């Protein structure tokens, strides 16, 4: 082979390499990561401007950059984070999950990205403790599914209270509901240290190692993440991130084999403290709430959307079920009855959780919005069906007899005689049901939808103002529901009056005229 042909082949190879690389770049790889950012400072949380922040957020951005992937965030509730991994809702979870043998049997862990310890906190003025054994007989709070919870449960005599949100746990200590809280040092530093009613008490307990959780089979991603992790630790980027968040402790420095001194000032910690300083007066508080209007608006629209579409679904399915139950042959009747009994006999929240977290196990993955709408719709369909059944049964038998005697078929009798009359009877209860549904829609926040209740969680855990936020959100529910309350009262006044006995307003009753709806 001549030298020039060798060169030509080399050139071709280079070109092919560049081209293939270019293709790879074009279809950008993503990294879907999940966390529960409601009141989860300093790990991942929403700042007042509704921007996601936190040291884990910074770490995952650095990792993704290192891996050449685009980070895509998926929000989920703490209790649903691991199940969501199994249902393929996202690739990995970074949310202060401790590497423990029990958890390691459920999921795959990356190498540690942070090492810390448990910090005990109690009310200011209480004598300090030196060992967990001293907590025997006392009520101690912590977060569910954490190493701290396991530690407390293994200490004889301790009455463990599990919380979903750390702010609630510390609030209960401050309010005197429980004796103290045992939680990871970063949580204590951000949520307990600034509170003048609380104090750090006792030494560092245990060793906590956080890892990124992945699906059990996903070893290739595990290796990819570990390589990136090692790279950002070695480059000092990790030390910078943790320093800014005020979390570069001797413990973590030792674990990563790096200098103990922070590399940067703790600007993120200081800005967190500044943002969460208690508002001095009512006007400042109001101004703060107003700052949340995008979340409030988004939450209200979501609540309305889920409720209205859910109700339409409930009406459609409920009507079908009622017809099946009242007029169907026995197998249909039986199916409808079974459905109604099962749905009415089980809690809506459980139904929602099954729809969202359970169905992916059999290959049906629903979006949070679809799961929320379906959950509400399928649930209320059972109640609607019973409403309509009552409405259909309330029409005197003679009405159908007269229709049949006039030569109408059964279905014509239903359509022109029975259903228009029952419609009037059930309109008020259906309107009332919609108001109930509007309120029950608050449960869809359990499937990660940011509805009004989701907005409540986000705002309350950012402001620590449960009372004010609670009142605010309750007021919004009330305002949204008000027009429907009025509508219910109106329909009750106009339509429930027994149209056979009292005077009625004919204009209102000219609903489906047979002439207009007729056609084959």
């Amino acid at each position, binding site marked *: 082979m001549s030298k020039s042909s060798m060169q030509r082949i080399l050139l071709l190879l280079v070109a092919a390499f560049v081209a293939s690389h270019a293709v790879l770049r074009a279809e950008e790889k993503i990294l879907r990561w999940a966390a529960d950012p409601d009141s989860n400072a300093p790990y991942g949380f929403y700042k007042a401007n509704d921007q996601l922040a936190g040291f884990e957020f910074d770490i995952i951005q650095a990792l993704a950059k290192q891996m050449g992937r685009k980070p895509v965030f998926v929000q989920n509730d703490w209790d649903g984070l691991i199940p969501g991994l199994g249902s393929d809702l996202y690739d990995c979870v970074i949310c202060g999950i401790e590497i423990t043998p029990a958890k390691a049997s459920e999921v795959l862990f990356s190498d540690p990205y942070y090492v810390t310890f448990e910090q005990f906190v109690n009310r200011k003025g209480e004598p300090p403790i030196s060992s967990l054994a001293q907590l025997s007989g006392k009520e101690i709070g912590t977060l569910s599914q954490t190493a701290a919870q396991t530690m407390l449960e293994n200490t004889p005599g301790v009455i463990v209270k599990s919380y979903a949100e750390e702010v609630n746990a510390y609030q209960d200590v401050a309010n005197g509901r429980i004796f103290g809280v045992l939680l990871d040092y970063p949580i204590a530093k951000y949520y307990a240290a600034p509170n003048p009613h609380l104090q750090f008490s006792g030494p560092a307990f245990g060793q906590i190692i956080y890892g990124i959780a992945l699906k059990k089979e996903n070893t290739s991603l595990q290796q990819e993440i570990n390589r990136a992790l090692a790279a950002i630790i070695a480059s000092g980027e990790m030390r910078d991130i943790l320093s800014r968040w005020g979390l570069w402790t001797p413990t973590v420095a030792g674990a990563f084999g790096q200098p103990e001194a922070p590399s940067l000032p703790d600007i993120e910690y200081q800005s967190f403290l500044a943002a969460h300083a208690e508002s001095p007066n009512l006007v400042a508080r109001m101004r703060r709430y107003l700052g949340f209007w995008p979340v409030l608006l988004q939450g209200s629209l979501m609540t309305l959307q889920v409720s209205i579409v859910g109700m339409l679904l409930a009406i459609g399915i409920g009507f079908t079920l009622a017809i099946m139950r009242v007029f169907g042959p026995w197998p249909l009747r039986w199916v409808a009855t079974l459905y109604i009994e099962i749905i009415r006999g089980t809690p809506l929240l459980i139904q929602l959780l099954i729809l969202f977290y359970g169905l992916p196990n059999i290959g049906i993955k629903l979006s949070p919005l679809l799961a929320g709408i379906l959950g509400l719709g399928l649930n209320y369909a059972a109640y609607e069906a019973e409403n309509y059944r009552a409405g259909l049964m309330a029409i*005197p038998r*003679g*009405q159908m*007899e*007269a*229709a*049949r*005697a*006039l*030569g*109408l*078929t*059964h279905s*014509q009798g239903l359509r*022109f*005689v029975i259903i*228009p*009359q029952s419609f*009037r009877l059930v309109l008020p209860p259906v309107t009332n049901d919609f108001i109930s549904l509007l309120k029950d829609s608050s449960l869809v926040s359990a499937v990660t939808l940011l509805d009004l209740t989701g907005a409540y969680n986000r705002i309350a855990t950012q402001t620590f103002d449960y009372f004010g936020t609670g009142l605010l959100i309750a007021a919004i529910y009330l305002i949204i529901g008000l027009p429907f309350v009025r509508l219910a009262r109106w329909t009750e006044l106009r339509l429930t009056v027994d*149209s*056979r*006995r*009292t*005077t*009625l307003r*004919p204009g209102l*009753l000219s*609903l489906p*005229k*047979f*002439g207009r709806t*007729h056609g084959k």
Partner: protein
Amino acid sequence: MNTPLLSVSGLHKSFGDTPILKGVSLDVEKGDLVSIIGPSGCGKSTLLRCMNFLEIPDAGRISIAGVTIDCLGLEDAPPKDLDAKAHKLRQHVGMVFQQFNLFPHMTILENIALAPHVSRNVPEKDARANGLQLLEKVGLGAFADRYPVQMSGGQQQRAAIARALAVNPSVMLYDEPTSALDPELVAEVLAVMKQLDAEGMTQIVVTHEMRFARDASDYIVFMEAGNIVEISDEDEIFENPKDERTRRFLGRFQ
């Protein structure tokens, strides 16, 4: 003798284990006005309701205006077959109920125009025009746009008669048409029925109105305990009932 317009023979009907009709046979000629009387529970209403299949007879034969149905085993027939047969029969039968059973969510005219339009495919405009004529006939021309609840019982029952007439029946059946009415409203309903009789309509009336039965009927059928006990000329049955049971029943009215 002509073939009767309506002929019932050997009709049996039980509700559960209780026999209500025990082999009833009856022929009605075109243009006749027949009253069926008898004590409560004698089966007179059931007989009437069997004639348009609101009740399905257990056995026997019903023949109306050329449509003949053998009823044996019909209750177990597929609902479709049953519906088809019942529908055929009902084409020829108009029914008026004790409680009127007008559709409360429709105006009187809509009540009347519904069946011709929906089940006979009469254009809505014609159905309404014909309905108005019928309302004029029963003296309710001005009430077309009223709702049933805005009318007296007598007016409602006259409207119900107009509604039944709207499908051009060969026979009109009345199930105690005046029992739910205040006494002063009875006459207007009976007047309509007499008028129809004069026009040659065939009518069968289950009634407690002995005076009407006597004045207007061509003849009277007396039923007791699921059987027809006596069929007689209206004067004769009142003045000289042949059967002891008829005598006892009528004795209560004198």
